[in-house]
């Protein structure tokens, strides 16, 4: 998206419909999820998705800080999406910039849409997402990691929440953008699905899409989310089945 006045734009789509990394338009990058990756957190997950590495942890339900945010009839969901200083090409100053604050807000709203918050009045469910290595799609990777972490923490929810970005690259609608596609493509549409209801709890978009392109993008994204859902379920199954190797950062 940031290509106005830029210097060199790479070829994003080959004549035979292959993308810059050889994928087809509807193909996901490799996705690996480890549930229960941390010891201290109540629930956690580590996601490697393409060249993204994202850790998520969940604490709660627990006391609300700061106190005045407490609600008498339900739990609140607080989210902090943060990027490590070294996760991007140019070192990022520590702390939440405006982009991170916006993403934290929409992710918190997405989860509050599926968690049974009424069961835990006067508490907070805190979702922490740390992006350790970034390569486009980190908000979706963070949401996927956090969703598995919530399940790992035993937080009752309507369903797991898979997420993926769809984009427009050289006039094609493609699934799961990587960095070059995101930088030089002409649209980016991240979404998060509740498979059980078929509804979207996160939806953003920036770029140019006609009515028809948008329809196709939504359909492609929903299909992508259903594939991701299977990986998420399997990660939790693996964890429950084996209670296997001691929890810890996958190395």
């Amino acid at each position, binding site marked *: 998206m940031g290509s106005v006045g830029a210097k060199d734009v790479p070829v994003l789509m080959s004549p035979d419909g292959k993308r810059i990394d050889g994928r087809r338009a509807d193909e996901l990058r490799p996705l690996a999820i480890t549930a229960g990756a941390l010891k201290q957190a109540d629930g956690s997950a580590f996601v490697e998705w393409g060249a993204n590495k994202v850790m998520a942890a969940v604490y709660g339900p627990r006391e609300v800080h700061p106190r005045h945010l407490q609600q*008498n*009839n339900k739990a609140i969901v607080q989210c902090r999406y943060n990027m490590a200083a070294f996760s991007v090409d140019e070192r990022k100053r520590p702390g939440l910039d405006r982009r991170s604050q916006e993403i934290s807000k929409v992710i918190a709203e997405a989860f509050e849409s599926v968690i049974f918050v009424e069961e835990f009045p006067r508490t907070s469910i805190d979702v922490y997402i740390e992006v350790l290595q970034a390569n486009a799609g980190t908000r979706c990777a963070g949401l996927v990691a956090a969703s598995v972490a919530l399940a790992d923490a035993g937080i009752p929810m309507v369903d797991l929440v898979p997420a993926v970005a769809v984009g427009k690259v050289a006039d094609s609608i493609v699934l799961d953008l990587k960095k070059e596609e995101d930088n030089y493509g002409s649209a980016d549409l991240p979404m998060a699905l509740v498979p059980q209801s078929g509804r979207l*709890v996160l939806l953003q978009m920036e770029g140019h899409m*006609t009515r028809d392109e948008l329809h196709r993008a939504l359909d492609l994204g929903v299909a992508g989310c259903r594939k991701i859902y299977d990986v998420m379920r399997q990660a939790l199954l693996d964890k429950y089945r084996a209670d296997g190797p001691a929890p810890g950062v996958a190395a």
Partner: protein
Amino acid sequence: MSEEVAAEILTTHILDLARSGRRLDGRGLDDYRKSSVVPGFVASADGSALARIGETAVLCGIKLEPGKPYPDTPNAGTLTTNAELVPLSSPMFEPGPPHPRAIEVSRVVDRAIRAAETIDLTKLCVTSGEKCWTCYVDMHVLDHSGNIIDTASLAALGALAHTTMPNVRFGVAEADAPLAIQHYPVECTFARLGEAIVIDPSVEEEGAANGRLTIATDEAGNVVAMQKGLIGAFSPDDVKSLVDRAFRHGDRQRRLAKDA
């Protein structure tokens, strides 16, 4: 009666009305409030507009100042968008550092302006890699009676469409010139009230809503930005039908900013 109970009763009432296609202020589900744009409201800005949607009011001022291009876009000027949800405008807003709500408003408006290529940023470059214009879009919310995003976006578009580049003041050219607008993006916001989805929600409806969706369209038939907000969900079919509604309402709102 406690505040929470009062709020809950109002929510129930609004949802009941919506179920039968009605709204608290008498509008139909697809009725947009009366809107207006007053350009040139502030003489100290290089461009400005006061936009009103119903009783919601946002004042936007544009300032152009010399700056330096970003290293990765040496031939483009820069754009900085900021929304101030000052406590003057609503009992819900408190003094202090920018609330995520204010950040969301500015980022959603910023995305629409940028994605629609509202202004040609390369025209704001003075000397490649050395000197450019920085265009500040500052939106000041004065009265928050619901649907800030659309109002702020309308104010920003109205202000940009009536901006003069202060070439003389900064010694960039011999005469000032109007800032050229390429495209006119308009945001259109919806709120889900139960299974009904209303356009241009009032502040009371936002309080009762289970989901908000903003869709920005341009005059050429493109969707240029979207943002789902609040707790709640939309089906892909909901989104598709709302896109059609956003296109239908876009032209009228666009004309307000353009012809003001």
